[in-house]
């Protein structure tokens, strides 16, 4: 059952839409980031996706939760961005962001984080999205399957494949 905010969103209430997407933006950005791996393009993807979603409410049939539907739009928009614009990685240490460690081991940790980022960059975008949705953002395999438009078994395979790559990196 949808909340009052969701009902207003679906009715085309601009203010309600703004409030709703602000509530969900960080998690949605996680999906976009997982695919495009670039902060500027993440912004582009999100802005385009929100515009698409607002324009497409008449196609929302209510079978999936509104947030799931939004996640799907973000994911497809991110894939479009990736396919159209090409892969362009910003090797910017600043993008490690506020989580950058400090202290005596900071230099080693920073290298490890860069290497882990590189390993994640090297994953299939769909594998990376599945990993982020499940391990990063706590979605179930069924929820991730609905968002990515795939079968549950496919999600499980993607996450397993991604974990295998990470394990190989850790052991190297």
């Amino acid at each position: 059952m949808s909340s009052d905010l969701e009902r207003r969103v679906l009715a085309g209430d601009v203010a309600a839409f703004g409030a709703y997407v602000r509530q969900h933006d960080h998690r949605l950005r996680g999906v976009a980031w997982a695919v495009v791996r670039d902060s500027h393009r993440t912004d582009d993807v999100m802005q385009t996706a929100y515009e698409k979603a607002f324009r497409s409410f008449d196609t929302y049939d209510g079978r999936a939760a509104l947030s799931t539907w939004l996640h799907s739009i973000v994911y497809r928009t991110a894939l479009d961005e990736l396919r159209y614009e090409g892969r362009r990685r910003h090797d910017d240490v600043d993008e490690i962001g506020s989580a950058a460690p400090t202290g005596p081991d900071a230099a080693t940790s920073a290298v490890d984080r860069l290497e882990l980022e590189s390993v994640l960059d090297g994953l299939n975008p769909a594998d990376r999205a599945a990993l982020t949705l499940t391990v990063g953002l706590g979605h179930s395999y069924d929820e991730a399957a609905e968002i990515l438009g795939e079968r549950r078994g496919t999600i499980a395979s993607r996450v397993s494949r991604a974990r295998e790559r990470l394990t190989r990196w850790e052991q190297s």
Partner: protein
Amino acid sequence: MNDDELGRFLRDEIPEPDDGYWEEIDARIAAEAGQRPSPVADLVTDVGQTDVDVIRLTDMRPITGSPRSTLVPRLVAMAAALVLVAGIAVVVTRSDDPDTSTDVAESTDPAPDTDPAPATDEPAPGDGSLQPSPDEPAPITDEELGEALLDPIAPGEYVVVGAATVEAKLNPITDEAGLDAFFEPGDDVLSATGRRALYQGVEFVEMIVDADAKPLWFPAGAVLQIGETLPTLEGSQVEAWEFGSILLSRAPGLADAGEVSASAGELLEATGRRALVDHREWLQISAAGERRWVLATEVVPVDAARGLETLSPIASAEWEVGRGGELEILDRPGFDGTLVGGAEIGGIVSGTGVRALADGLEWYEVLIAEGQVGWVMANTVQAPDTILGSSRQCYADGADVLAITFSGDAETFTGVFAVGDSVEAVAGVRLGADFLVAIEPIGAAEEAGFEVGQETWQAFAAGFSIGERAFLEIVECRTVQSTVDQLDALVGTYPDVPFPD
């Protein structure tokens, strides 16, 4: 690293939005909701067609909410909303006529008396059934298609088939694509208008996807008519593509496959028979001595001799390195490939016509040396500009000055752009009968918040207009280190044009 640690890392990686992010979203949603007119529509006004040799853009007025361009399709809409950074001085010189000081005009002056041409000189749609919106180009007419137009096909209903996502275009003979222009096999029912066109060896058919939207052009080989018998494919091998395992059904469209399945990477023998069920294509394969059926989206054809998951070949073409940064050429398709070559932005690589699918993306085989080939991601290259022009992009990353040479007919112009921030994209787009250049400094415009007034736009447009049917091809981009002497030397006879400090 356990799941908790990995989860925390993945969450911490998610970047916060840049400044202006929410303002942009709010502006777009408000515009979509019709609460205010589109800024592009406001700026599309009459355009003068006066040849002007020097333009000094000094009349800038601050605004907020300047649209941020992203994809090439948006550049078409942005053609009427030229956004310039504070301090840019645009000097256009004729390379063959240095002494044209008497022709200097400033943007603050009204355009000389001319008969203004309509800013949106949009031809009538080909079938008369669709009206263009003010911020999108009109459907291409039969006249504009010219020799590309083929004999019509009978209208009917079609679906997208095959293994890969298909990109549809607003215009089959340029690189223009619309929003939501990617289609998955079986997702939509398309209605053919009957029009066909041939461009660079690829046949396109015009389809209506949404009755309220413009028709799109799809590669003919990527769509099949519903209700028609599918032509058989040559018997070949296919490889299970979907991760995990795929089900091999007893009949096309039948979800229950019993216990027969194939693992990802397993090679299957295709009999060549195909079927269309519920708008999705199924292929018949041989497995364990039985004939079974598999969704076409779950397998890809295999070039057994080369071990590649190939897609249908395209006409071999020259590809221009686009916005992906320096082009990486790998020894095989897929992110695991080894780097064997490269090309800079604007460089040209020659395709062999072979395409492959790897890591969920499309790859092109290209020539890198005599007898040697490599692979590039398809979305990092683009067809070079044509006379009818799409766009070419120049970058001034880290430099203070960008010099862009344009050519039109037999004349060349050098535009010198002294920028206070990085000019990331310069695109030539066509609007009506004029060919305009939109300069778009990503990010800086939003910070500075400048708008292009009607006078400025007219003067800018007039400076690049040559005759009635004008086009500009960007032939060279150069970055120049910013010293006044170097700029003066580049500009030539206009040393008095002010440049930013």
